[in-house]
């Protein structure tokens, strides 16, 4: 489905200098937008520029951003994982089940992360082991994983998580910096290093640009992709621990539609949906932007479903705008 580009790729005659390239990059545009939104929000509401309010605002994006880091790698490699929200649901259900069996907090975390890893492994095996298209497989596992939590929970809900479990979603590391925000910063660094400074990261780009060429140059395509789906499952598990701890309850409909927001965040961050390009700093900025916009809407009492319209429009326009822009530039060049 990813081969709609019939026009040849244009290679520039002269490379741009490092500085001008950085200025013209998608990331610097995102930075400007982020600063603008920050300024608008602080003018629009007198409550915005309060450290505790800003700290609350981070909860809007930290859990989704954790998944978005891994999803960025998956999308750069030319695949997609639509099952992440369902992994959150299944892993939260598993933790709820563990609570009823009397598990304590460390065991709960192990169960949550383990379920995420297991789900990721299922996706990875189906996609790399059987060679199936990731979009259909993860549409299938999206209903399978959530379906399993519906079978386990039905119309019930799990509550009664131990008090110490609340730390992951509600605790603060230092002053206004929440545990979730610390996780966000930690994984932003980890994934930046992984994607931009390691052989593994190079392999991810290589696969996304030309899978066959990557294979012939010795990249173990199947293994790299399997690890990517495993990582996405793990990050969904981590997000599930945070979200479950923050809400203090589990329903089968938990985190419904989150996959859309995660994909939007990744694409807004400048990752090409066709694979092969994108950066983690871009995703970090996109996370801030989406978080602040939803927080700003929240201060203005906009209902959640209207925000989802905005996210849908955002998703389409961030992909459409660069295409329109480059088309206009090419027309001028002719």
């Amino acid at each position, binding site marked *: *489905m*990813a*081969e*709609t*580009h*019939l026009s040849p790729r244009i290679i520039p005659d002269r490379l741009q200098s490092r500085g001008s390239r950085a200025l013209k990059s998608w990331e610097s545009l995102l930075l400007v937008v982020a600063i603008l939104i920050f300024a608008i929000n602080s003018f629009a509401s007198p409550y915005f520029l309060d450290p505790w309010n800003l700290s609350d605002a981070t909860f809007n994006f930290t859990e989704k951003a954790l998944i978005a880091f891994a999803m960025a790698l998956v999308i750069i490699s030319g695949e*997609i994982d639509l099952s992440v929200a369902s992994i959150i649901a299944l892993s939260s259900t598993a933790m709820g089940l563990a609570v009823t069996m009397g598990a304590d907090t460390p065991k709960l975390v192990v169960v949550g992360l383990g379920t995420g890893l297991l789900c990721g492994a299922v996706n990875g095996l*189906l996609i790399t082991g*059987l*060679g*199936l*298209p990731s*979009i*259909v*497989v993860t*549409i*299938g*596992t*999206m*209903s*399978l*994983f*959530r*379906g*399993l939590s*519906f*079978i386990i929970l*039905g*119309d019930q809900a799990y509550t009664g998580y131990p008090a110490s479990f609340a730390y992951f979603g509600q605790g603060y590391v230092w002053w206004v910096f929440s545990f979730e925000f610390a996780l966000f910063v930690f994984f932003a660094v980890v994934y930046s290093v992984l994607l931009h400074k390691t052989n593994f990261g190079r392999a991810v780009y290589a696969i996304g640009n030309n*899978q*066959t060429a*990557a*294979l012939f140059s010795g990249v173990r*395509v*199947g293994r790299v992709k399997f690890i990517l789906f495993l990582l996405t499952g793990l990050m969904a598990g981590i997000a599930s621990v945070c979200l479950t701890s923050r809400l203090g309850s589990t329903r*089968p409909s938990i985190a419904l*539609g989150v996959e*859309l927001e995660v*994909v939007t965040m990744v*694409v807004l961050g400048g990752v090409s*949906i*066709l694979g092969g390009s994108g950066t983690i700093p871009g995703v970090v900025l996109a996370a801030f932007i989406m978080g602040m916009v939803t927080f700003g809407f929240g201060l203005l009492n906009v*209902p959640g*479903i*209207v925000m*989802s*319209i905005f*996210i*849908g*429009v955002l*998703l*389409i326009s961030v*992909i*459409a705008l660069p*295409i*329109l822009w480059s088309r206009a530039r090419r027309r001028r060049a002719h």
Partner: protein
Amino acid sequence: MATLLKNREILLVIAIIALVFLIALRFPGFVAPANLARVYNDTSILIILALGQMAVILTRCIDLSMAANLALSGMVAAMVNAAFPGIPIPLVILVVVALGAALGSINGLLVWKLDIPPIVVTLGTLTIYRGTIFLLSKGAWINAHQMSDAFKALPRAPLIGFPVLSWLSVLAIAAVYILMTRTPVGRAFFAVGGNPHAAVYTGIDVGRTRFLAYCLSGGLAGLSGYLWVSRYAVAYVDIAAGFELDIIAACVIGGISIAGGIGSVGGAVLGSLFLGVIKNALPVINISPFAQLAISGTVIIIAVAVNARTEKRKGRVILKKAEAV
């Protein structure tokens, strides 16, 4: 016999008959003709939607917004009927089919003119259409008492022994069958999915063909919107939420290749019937309706694995394919 078994439609017919037979062993009432007709009637809307999705998937695209389109069209149909009960129902149907086709054409235009990957486009319009229902209805429900009797009666009105709903799906099957097998557009759907580059050289406009496929899926979703709302006599933001997965499942089960170019009307219909039989059998054999989502998911995965196996091209391997690793 061996070639017969390779035919997806015949395999599916055998699978459906086996499934029905197994259920009938314990619950003979399930195979009573009247009940089978009811099962078909209950699956009609899924069949209509699967026909549209098939056309889109054939052209190497996907339409995740069908259920949201259905819900939006259904809401508009219900609101029009609630506000102006005097408008004749055929006109209402015409309006929602046009509205559905227009919503589908938005997907089509974005895919055609802007070259945005179909999955992103329809994932985006899926939320936009759902959100629009909220904006239109302000989150309120339109209930049975607000709809006119004629509005609610049409799908279940009997016509030569079967409800109109069943007849409409038969009509849709016939129309799409003729479109697929007897018209240039139908051939173009297959050509574009089979090999877009070759299609360009044979004079087919790839983008325009995809656009038409989206218009078709949108129009059928609009029709289903009216049918859904009038059949269940209620319209609200979340009707048919998640149904897009069932539609794709029906197509994948029916042997329509997600890579495009392979599929048939018979496959889409039988894939829908397979799901329909399972869905109707669950309460009979005492399995919780909550299990249905997991079953659809499992069936999608099994079906796509089977498809991948049968689609493997036979012949001498000259260059090792990257996907084989």
